[in-house]
């Protein structure tokens, strides 16, 4: 339960911060992992899942409203089938989010040495 709430809060924070810069999806999982003192694996997972959730939601919402007009074209630019492209797009965001969380969790080691 706690983890689900963490994921949702991380996703929401990332969404708000993304209005300013796309790389907020790194910064937010990073900060969450630092503040909550995650271990490496968990940091990655929370970041990955949060951003996967956020990007899936945003992408699906936009894509349905657009009736796939643009995503089909961009998929073509990348030479990918439409559905594969959508998965890759979400995966890329999730991966970056995960890396953010992982990096944040690694910071724990510094604090550990200080304490």
């Amino acid at each position: 339960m706690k983890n689900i709430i963490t994921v949702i809060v991380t996703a929401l924070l990332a969404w708000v911060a993304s209005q300013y810069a796309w790389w907020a999806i790194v910064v937010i999982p990073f900060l969450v992992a630092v503040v909550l003192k995650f271990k490496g694996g968990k940091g990655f997972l929370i970041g990955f899942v949060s951003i996967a959730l956020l990007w899936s939601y945003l992408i699906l919402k936009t894509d349905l409203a657009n009736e796939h007009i643009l995503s089909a074209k961009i998929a073509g630019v990348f030479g990918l089938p439409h559905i594969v492209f959508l998965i890759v797009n979400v995966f890329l965001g999730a991966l970056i989010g995960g890396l953010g969380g992982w990096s944040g969790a690694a910071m724990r080691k510094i604090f550990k040495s200080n304490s």
Partner: protein
Amino acid sequence: MRIVKAILPLVCTTIIVWLLNKPIGSIPALGKLLDPVSGFWANAECTDKDFNSTFEFVELNDDVSVWFDERLVPHINATNDYDLYFLQGYLHAYFRLFQMDLQTRAASGDVCELLGDKALNYARGQRRKGMVYGAEQSLQKMEANPNTKTALDAYKDGVNKYINSLVFKDYPLEYKLMGFEPSEWKNINTALLLKYMADDLTGKVDDISYSYLRKVLGEEFEFLFPDRINASTPVIPRGTKYDAPTIEQPLVPEGDIWADLQLANTNENIEKGKGSNNWAVAPQRTKNGHAILCNDPHLSLNLPALWFEVQLHTNSVNAYGVSLPGAPGIIIGFNDSLSWGFTNNYRDVKDYYTIKELDNDNYELDGKPMKYQKRVEVIKLKGGKEFVDTVKYTIHGPVMYDANYKEPHGVQQPLAMKWMGHKPSNELLAVYKLNRADNYDEFVDAIGNFTCPAQNFIFSDTKGNIALWGQGQYINKWKDQGRFVMNGATSKTLWGAEIPVRENPHALNPEQGYLSSANQTVTDSTYPYYYNGDFVEFRAWRINKALDSMYYVTVKDLQQLQRDVHSVLAEQVLPTMLSYIKTTEIETHEYIKELNGWDYKMDAGSRSATTFHLWWNTFYKEIWEEGFGFAKEKIVFYPSQERTAELFVGDSVFYQHVQDVLVLSFKNAADSISSLENRAWYKVKNTSINHLTKLAPFSYTSINVGGWGNTVNAMKGNHGPSWRMVVEMADEPQAYGVYPGGQSGNPGSKYYGTFIDKWSKGEYYNLSFISNSSQPKEEQVVFKWKCKK
């Protein structure tokens, strides 16, 4: 060690993010691009987007309302010129910003910043031919006139108002893909865009090829490359009486007037075939007793489309038609009283001179040194660097080619170019006045300002008048002046006086009851001034023959004519081709059997059209290649298709073993046909509408349409009817139109390629013109913009 372990992931992540945040080579910044908040997803427009909006524009003098119809055509209602053109600028930018930016850059050669060094040669060429110079000259004249100055300033303010409201998220998709930003709009951009059109339509360089061919062919040259095709049906009908000229045609000067070209052994194939059709039918020939005007300019087929439909309305103007994103006003259209359109008038207004260079600062004229005027052109490159080119201006215009920038045919001497587009001119004033014209006299007064590119202006009004003008600024030339490269070391070859525009060839309400133009020869030989040009005849033959036999003409009949795919070339040459190959081995070939029953229609699905096209073109090439064997290495430039057809079917035995060449070329053509998966004509010619970035997913290819450059429906590979318009000049004009594209330039909008389907089928939209006296009907207004001052 612990610190390293702690920091390492952060360092790795930072590097990855950094890499995803910037373009690498031609790959865009992927992180930025794929971000669902501000990346390309922000351009994925909701298909039920509500375009209703309220704006506050402090620049406005008064409130303005904009009504959009269901096709997203805006109808701008303002109370004064400034507000009207401010909104037109804002709307153009709102829907078409990227194309305005890119086309301006293409005009001025400011493309290396985006495309890298590979575009440098193109960029230098644009500068050297004086595109920016010419635009500056014209801008001065446009800004000296209070009406066009207001229009330009207001338009610019509107465009910039939109640009300044944007953040990355709102940028047109192409900026995100190509990694650049919109730049501030300036009045010079409009001037550049108009020069770009002028260059596109007067740009062909045949003077060099002609000079070479005349030298090697001697007397045969005039026979193969006549100034006029005898059977031409000119723009201004035969028998039209011309007033006596107010200035006399000069005599050909004595002495050394031609350049002695030193050519290297390169060749270049020049693509022909930009063309257009227009015609007007007088009330005496129409069913409803109103004049009907038609126009379909053939230009490059691109997305976003060249044109943007709009209606402009104030107390002094109420015009509807297509506008050019980047320029204020309506270029082709109609108003409450009259309608107009144009086709390119191919009279030659671009001439070349060899320059005798004395040293880096001087050239020779009449045995005396003359100083070059030097113009430094700075071209911005990718990564902040600059390329500096110094262009030398002579009395004959800028030196376009020299040792630093080689002429593609390999001309060794410096070549200067004299072009009407360098002259200060105000075509925008012509547009401004045309939009407001009420009658024939005002129409004539308006188009008098149209200097370059010269156009055949068609006219009709609600009173039933029709007219056609071959309008542009021309020089009173001696015979053959500018047809060949001239010797620039003598002042005898200088351009002389300008022909008064009132003496341009024109016809008003001719007895025949119709007028038409399709890029053919402008006049018969009784026109009192000399001109040469690059004219084509096939479409004109078809149109004139069709109109000549039409009575009780309706809008539908004329729409049918715009769709016509009958090949006059095939009609002229195919029977002779077939009779030559009788009793040869190919007579019983299945393709030949098909051709025997063919109706000369270049229909989309026709296989005979494919066979004929490939056979004739292989034959055409073979026969001239053999005939010009001696010059093959130097130039690929053959007599026109019209002249070739005339010689081929005529008595003239210009070639000994035509039969053998026909059989051989048929075999070659049949070989390539048999390797085709689908022999349907549309598959072979592949009419395509490419996005300006050439990205295939944004483009439409292999469109199911018939026709070719020499049929009325001139659907070529990347050229075709860029706007089809038919206007019946009833008391309230009834208009129909379609263009290959959509109002929105955004590939993520449902309004992006909306009209292409109808366009390819040859169907039309009813244009919802809101007349002065009436309020719009409810179904005419789907969205509204309220713009408050």
